[in-house]
């Protein structure tokens, strides 16, 4: 009987272990990170566009919340029974038919940009010389400014097939201080790549197309190209 009891405990143990494994695996698959979008000047443009279309605003759609825009917002608020304070808060935004989830902190925008940039630099170029890491950040920012790429840092980084480290998940590694410094330098305008839009490691690059690009500078293991 003792043997039977032991065996039963063994069986139950295995079943319990496997159940825990399945449960844990499910949890790990289900969990995800939700990144909050941040306010951009395009939201001011959206406000201006809507107010212009509805006849409240006659200035240019430039993304600047100047006196004309403020006056138009106040006029809109008065007409719609809202507090006429010239501030596009949650209620005014709702009346305008737009979301202002991220409008509360412009600083968040820069923090997210810095964090994303640092993550990509760390994932793509840890172990490379510092200037090479800054250059990777600069390539991302050069792409943002180029007509041939998405217009935001997250758009460029998460563009399908753009970065190996994003495809294989290394982007989720926590960046070190050097990567943060490199990202901050790149955001401050440092660009040792001279405006490069591409880079590749000649030892590992498999795309024949990338080899056709004109190389501008080589830093560490990376060739930077336009």
């Amino acid at each position, binding site marked *: 009987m003792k043997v039977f009891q032991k065996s039963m405990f063994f069986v139950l143990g*295995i079943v319990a272990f496997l159940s825990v494994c*399945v449960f844990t695996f499910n949890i790990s698959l289900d969990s995800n990170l939700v990144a909050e979008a941040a306010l951009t000047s395009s939201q001011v443009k*959206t406000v201006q566009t809507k107010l212009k279309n509805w006849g409240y605003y006659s200035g240019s759609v430039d993304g600047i919340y100047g006196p004309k825009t403020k006056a138009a917002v106040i006029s809109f608020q008065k007409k719609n029974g809202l507090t006429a304070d010239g501030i596009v808060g949650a209620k005014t935004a709702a009346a305008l038919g737009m979301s202002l989830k991220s409008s509360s902190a412009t600083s968040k925008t820069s923090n997210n940009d810095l964090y994303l940039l640092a993550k990509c630099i760390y994932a793509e170029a840890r172990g490379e010389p510092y200037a090479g890491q800054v250059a990777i950040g600069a390539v991302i920012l050069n792409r943002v400014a180029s007509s041939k790429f*998405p217009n935001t840092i997250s758009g460029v980084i998460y563009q*399908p*097939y753009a970065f190996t480290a994003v495809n294989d998940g290394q982007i989720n590694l926590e960046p070190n201080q050097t990567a943060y410094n490199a990202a*901050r330098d790149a955001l401050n305008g440092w660009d040792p790549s001279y405006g490069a839009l591409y880079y590749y490691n000649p030892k590992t690059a498999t795309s024949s197309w990338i080899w056709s690009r004109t190389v*501008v500078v080589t830093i560490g293991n990376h060739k930077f190209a336009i």
Partner: protein
Amino acid sequence: MTKATKLTIFVCSLATFAGLVAMLVFGLNSFNQVQNYKQQLNNTYQNNFYCLTDSVSNIENDLSKFSISSDDKLKERYLIEIVSLCQGAQNNLSSLPIEHNSLLNTYKFVNQLGGYCYSLSQKLSLGKELTTDDEAQIDDLHESAVKIKQDLTKLSNLINSGYSIVDNIQNPDVSKNNFSGEWNGMYDDTIEYPTLIYDGPFSDSTENKTVKGLENKYCTETEAKLFVESLFKDWQVESAGESAGKDFETWNFNVTKKETSGFVQITKKGCFLLQFSSDALNNEQTKTIDECETLAKQFAVGAGLKSFDIVWSTECDGFVYCNLVYVQDGVIVYPDMVKIKVNTQDGNVCGWEARSYAFNHKKRIDITPQKSQQQAKVLVDKNMTILTNKLCIIPAEYVGENLAWEFKCLMNDDVFYVYIDANTLQELNIMKVVQTNDGLLLM
């Protein structure tokens, strides 16, 4: 066989069976989840694709309506709609699993169309008239939009017939990735896109900037090395080859000092310190911002800069970033800017960025304002308290420069910089000082 052995065999068999059942449950569960994720991903891709086709279709409609409209207000409305649609189309494009080199021209078209329409809408909002060239350009763009719409319709038909994008994206290689292949096959890359030069974002003119700030004499690598050694006295300097960018040709050097290493780029033309970056870290802050500014100025003098001032400094993670600009007869020339990074631990300059200076620096000819500071001052919002004012040259939004009155103002504890054109009194820009974890930012 004893009873105990039989029991053991029975229990082991049961354990194996239970294990198999658990594995089966696990496998089915995982399979269902993968199917679920695939479905969600496919829905997202399809949503982006259909949104893209809708945007292109609406762009095409708005362009054709624009062409036949005779009212400037209505034209402006169509242009603003197109700008918004282009932004949406660009977002949708960047979410599709297609190799970048297959999308280059489409991106460029969408971005430039948005930028061009934005510049035309600005023109109309200022009461200016569109030229016949502008109208003709819109007609050309309309033709391209029609062609893109037709090509996207072919892809729509494919997806409508049950094609799953997500089942065909396993291989990023275009030749093996069927969706990129389908895109390349159906989307005609021979569409002719007009070259667009305008005063707005993504204009082709921005790709043709000329370097104005370098002296017209060339230096050898030895001369450049001597210059670097004079600037970085305690550092070891080693040659790191040369670079030939679109705008600058440089001699490159690796510099090291104890555990810190850096990369220096000296222009061949003019022997000018273009950039320097180093991996210096900061463990202890011993220098104040004022001390760092003084050290930055000393370094700038050594690098050959004359007549300048520091207009902005901010500290972050133990490093002070100083913006140093050229000053001509008391006028601040913002386009001629050098950014200097100073380590507050030892006061060493650990970064230098001078491309703007190299691109723009020259003696300005006409810096006498037609409108007085008093005339500009009355245009500043009455609720703001003016702290300081200066005459300055600022870069225009896309191309060129403007002479402007700068007013530093305070309102509700927020600091703003307001720029008013010193010749036309037009309000050019407003910058807000924002306190962040990364120091003060101008946004």
